[in-house]
């Protein structure tokens, strides 16, 4: 259950096929835009964030992680009416951080993934909040209970999403 420190030799690196690399993020962004219309409570989830974390920890390549995060974030931004880059910057950092951490830690078990998701959800929210408020000048409401609940919900969903990603990842 605990996050264990492992040597670089013990860590396995995975890759994803091109269709999976393209379709999974697209599906995540699509579901994030579509499901809240049918199930309003779904706005507390952030599927693209979970996919970025899942891809980054499996690939364990910081460059691939930041590029994946940046692209998914920009796609997410493009569907909003806010300036492009808010999600882009936050997910770039998350992608880079998750893949860097994936090199050093064993994140194959559910408990580690749960904690990892909570951690990166918090990182994502803090970066997003700072940029939206400091750079774009948006009024943001920070609510600790909401963030906590949302973090927990995303962590639970994240464990499920990572299990699905495990099925499509391939050993290098």
């Amino acid at each position, binding site marked *: 259950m605990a996050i264990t420190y492992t040597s670089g030799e013990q860590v396995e690196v995975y890759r994803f096929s091109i269709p999976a690399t393209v379709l999974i993020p697209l599906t995540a962004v699509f579901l994030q835009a579509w499901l809240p*219309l049918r199930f309003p409570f779904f706005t507390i989830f952030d599927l693209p964030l979970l996919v970025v974390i899942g891809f980054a920890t499996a690939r364990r390549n910081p460059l691939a992680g930041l590029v994946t995060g940046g692209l998914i974030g920009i796609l997410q931004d*493009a569907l909003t009416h806010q300036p*492009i880059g808010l999600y882009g910057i936050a997910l770039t950092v998350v992608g880079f951080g998750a893949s860097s951490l994936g090199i050093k830690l064993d994140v194959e078990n559910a408990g580690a993934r749960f904690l990892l998701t909570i951690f990166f959800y918090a990182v994502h929210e803090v970066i997003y909040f700072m940029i939206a408020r400091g*750079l774009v000048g948006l009024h943001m409401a920070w609510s600790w209970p909401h963030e906590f609940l949302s973090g927990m919900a995303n962590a639970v969903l994240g464990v499920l999403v990572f299990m699905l990603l495990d099925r499509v990842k391939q050993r290098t």
Partner: protein
Amino acid sequence: MDVLGRYRNLIVLVGVLFAQILGLAVQVNVKRTTDTEPTRLIRVWAVATVAPLEKTLGWLQTSSGNIWHNYFYLRGVRAENRDLKLQIERMSLEQARMSQDADQARRLQALLGFKERFISQTMAAQVIGSSGSELSRSVYIDKGYKDGIKPDMAVITADGIVGKVLRADNRHVAQVLLIDDQTSGVGAILDKTRLQGILRGTPTGEVVLEKVMSDETVPVGELVLTSGGDGIFPKGLLVGKVTKASPGSDLFLNIHVRPAADLSRLEEVLVVTKMDERQSEPDRTGAARAVDILAERLPGVPPKPESAEKVAAPASAPGTAKPATGAPTNSGSEGKPKAPPPPVSAGGGPSATQKTTTAASSSGRSSGIPASTTGPPIVKVTPAPATPVSDPKPQPATEDTPH
């Protein structure tokens, strides 16, 4: 070189972040100074990528729902039909009574040279997706610039206003900014107290009415209507209801409003594609009167034979004649003896049923919304007392696109 290789990942990260922050700053600056959209291409491509999936799923959902509702789930339709007929009868009476007041209002407005803005054309659209972000409360509809959608068009439902078209860059997709977004603003007026303010969204998704002075009294439950001052929404459309009013930190009241339209569960909306402005004219065609409609319900007297009618006609005093079958009388021809109404297919004028239907169908026009034959009925849009009623001339047909 060794340092560069060692910190390569970090350098790339800093470079990517710097580029994005720079891009963000440029967008904010350009938007502030020139109000243009430097990222239009990215947005168009992103929407074009995601929208087909959303449309397909939406179509599947609608189709399966239609099959269920139209073929399988028909229980209670007879009873519902009976209730609706009764409701139509009640509303016909009410409408006829109100048309008298409306005609009087039109005469007064004509005297004052009052000009009204009213909705002359709407387009039905289906909500196919959202932005997926709590910070951006907007939805996507399945109509774009090819369908005649343009930015700043009002978007409404039968329950109340929804928002305005923000972008219509794609051919068959447009983005609608909801009224609960923090960047939206709607001119609003309180129904009874006639206090005006600006309706805005908050970061938490609530809707508040701003700029109402704190020395005013706003009762909870009061209706909020559009004031027409924003130039987007016509006056008198229902916005919502006051749920809380308390003194704010400054000179203004803190008024919370619950939108009448359920913004979290939008499915179909109407985009106001055309609004006209014209001077009010008094009703010269003569609307159906309540007494005529009541007469229509009286037991019908069979028409007399022609010979008997000729004999009886001179005897009947002008102004006392009533149509035997309850045909409504035009105010212009009131007092004259009336012949039995011609059959509908004769084409010699509207029958009693037709007139009643016309009168009933024009009930939606009191708020400036044309009656629609196929589209969703707009019956809950409450007109403001000061809202000018539309004139009785035939209005341009409402374009309702079936889905």
